[in-house]
């Protein structure tokens, strides 16, 4: 543990003040930008704008994706209005694109419309699974990076593909836990660990989160952030689930930083046996 300056601080009455051990700064940074929350939200599936807004506020998110094929930035009352009002950074995505060509075009239109060069790159293979098409994804990522975009690709939970995306120059990698909207959680935690282990850019667990424990697990596995939408927007009480996700992401992050105990086959008493009364 790093001994911090303020832990040695002394208050007015001369008593030593212990600093909050949780106060170590732990910023979440992508491409030089710091975000105050490790929960990235999506906006699809919300029953109403008001429900969405309440959920976004409850989630504490600072970065939220918007499908650029589904919104017109000039319209009053749109999801972009909600994000502007709540001072949440917009991350345009290329949802609904099947080819690199479509994805690159959509990203360029988004840059023009929103004035941001950030893009969550999504190139899906088919509508049934919504799984990423790895070949189109790499192709699109290369083109976008070359065009000066900050690219955050939604990818399979394949460590090799994740590494390739990083090598191309993506600002983060976003492996899926399971298919979009499925709520199946993290189906291959081992691969997520491998991706985390080798990544030099932030890893964002994207897609498949069903409930709070899934989000906590992602963070315990070492992901830098979690991106989710359906688990909140289609929950019975979206704002409440959003708050649950906020806590889960924080809890998982703290647990990761704290360092979990090794697993043992047999019990180990938490208090020592020595010195116990035998009377």
């Amino acid at each position, binding site marked *: 543990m790093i001994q911090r300056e303020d832990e040695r601080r002394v208050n007015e009455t001369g008593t030593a003040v212990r600093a909050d051990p949780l106060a170590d700064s732990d910023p979440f940074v992508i491409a030089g930008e710091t975000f105050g929350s490790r929960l990235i939200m999506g906006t699809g599936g919300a*029953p*109403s*704008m*008001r*429900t969405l*807004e309440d959920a976004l506020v409850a989630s504490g998110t600072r970065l939220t994706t918007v499908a650029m094929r*589904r*919104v*017109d930035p*000039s*319209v*009053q*009352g*749109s*999801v972009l*209005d909600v994000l*502007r*009002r709540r001072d949440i950074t917009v991350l345009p995505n290329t949802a609904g694109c099947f080819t690199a060509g479509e994805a690159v075009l959509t990203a360029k239109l988004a840059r023009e419309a929103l004035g941001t060069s950030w893009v969550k790159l999504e190139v899906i293979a088919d*509508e*049934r699974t919504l799984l990423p098409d790895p070949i189109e994804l790499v192709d699109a990522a290369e083109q976008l990076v070359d065009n000066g975009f900050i690219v955050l690709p939604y990818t399979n939970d394949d460590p090799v593909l994740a590494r390739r995306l990083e090598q191309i120059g993506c600002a983060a990698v976003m492996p899926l836990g399971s298919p979009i*909207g499925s709520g199946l959680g993290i189906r291959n935690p081992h691969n997520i660990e491998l991706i985390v282990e080798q990544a030099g850019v932030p890893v964002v667990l994207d897609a498949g989160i069903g409930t709070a424990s899934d989000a906590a697990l992602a963070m315990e596995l070492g992901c830098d952030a979690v991106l989710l939408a359906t688990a909140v927007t289609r*929950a*019975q*009480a*979206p704002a409440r689930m959003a708050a649950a996700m906020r806590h889960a992401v924080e809890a998982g992050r703290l647990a990761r930083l704290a360092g979990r105990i090794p697993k043992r086959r047999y019990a180990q008493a938490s208090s020592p046996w020595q010195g116990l009364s035998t009377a």
Partner: protein
Amino acid sequence: MDVVIVGAGVIGLAIAWRSAQRGLDVTIVDPRPASEASYVAAGMLAPVGELAYGEEELLRLGIASRDRYSAFVAELEELTGHDTGYRDEDTVQVAFDSDDLAFLDDLRRFQETLGLPATPLSGRECRRLEPMLAPSVRGGLLAERNGSIDPRRLTAALLAAVERAGARLVRRRVTRVLVEAGRAVGVRTEAGDDVRADQVVLATGAWTHRLAGLPPDVVPVIRPVKGQVVRLRTRVPFLTRTVRGVVKGSSIYVVPRSDGEIVIGATQEELGYDTTVTAGGLWELLRDARELIPGITELEFAEVCAGLRPGSPDNAPVLGPAALPGLLLATGHFRNGILLAPVTGDVVSEALTTGEVPDVVRAFTPERFAKEIPA
């Protein structure tokens, strides 16, 4: 007392009719009455089928309006001699795969908690009710008393009723609301002439924010939500009741009419005032409809069109007096304009004559947005 109603869609017409019946001097202004969303709408009267978590109050309002429909239509048809194509019947809601069935089960349990029992159906039972359904349909729900109406016939009948009741129809576009001394006193049309009245009602749907002259924060944000709808024709009996379906996670409905028209809808797109009919929209509707009812590919293609639903921040209508004296709102009906026309006509005409908002719409007055941070 005189009143000017802006907008002659199904909502404005219902208000105009009921208000004129109550003895108000009514002028209704619209360049193209009974066009736009009212013209595109499929006309499902399905409060239960549209149920979503957190929208229980809206469900109650929908049921209240549905319960008024039979009498509303009977009176209207009697008065005008028009046929509105009204059908009061069960509808079936079916699931395409096991994920869709799980979604319907969840919906059914939610309905039951609200005291609205729905009958679960096996795939075979669904197909016994509607033999045109695909063998792959996994199961469904039977929803009682979720009928339908032909919105084009309904608005034609309402137009006749409005004229018969003595209301004046002005075929002009309203450009601004006239405000004097902190009170709405009428409207100005594109021709530059003013229609003055004691009270102004905005039944302007998705175009509410196109009106000039309103002080800020008087009208909550109403955004256009595009919907594309396909119309087919059949000469042979095809479906006996409305079929709603969930196909691989997306919702679709197929509404049969007695005259052989079959309406398939609808996309839901947040693209501003764009009403372009797209290849993708048409394809998605036909694809999902064909999954559920393979035989639709044999039917005659009649029409495809797109309309703009007026969406409020909470999907519910905004009904009653606004913060600006003399101004009443009747907008934001979103997916439920046709369904909610009877109750809207009743409560807004009552508010116009008595100044009181009936209990049934207490939860839907503009006040609920008063604390909203302006956009």
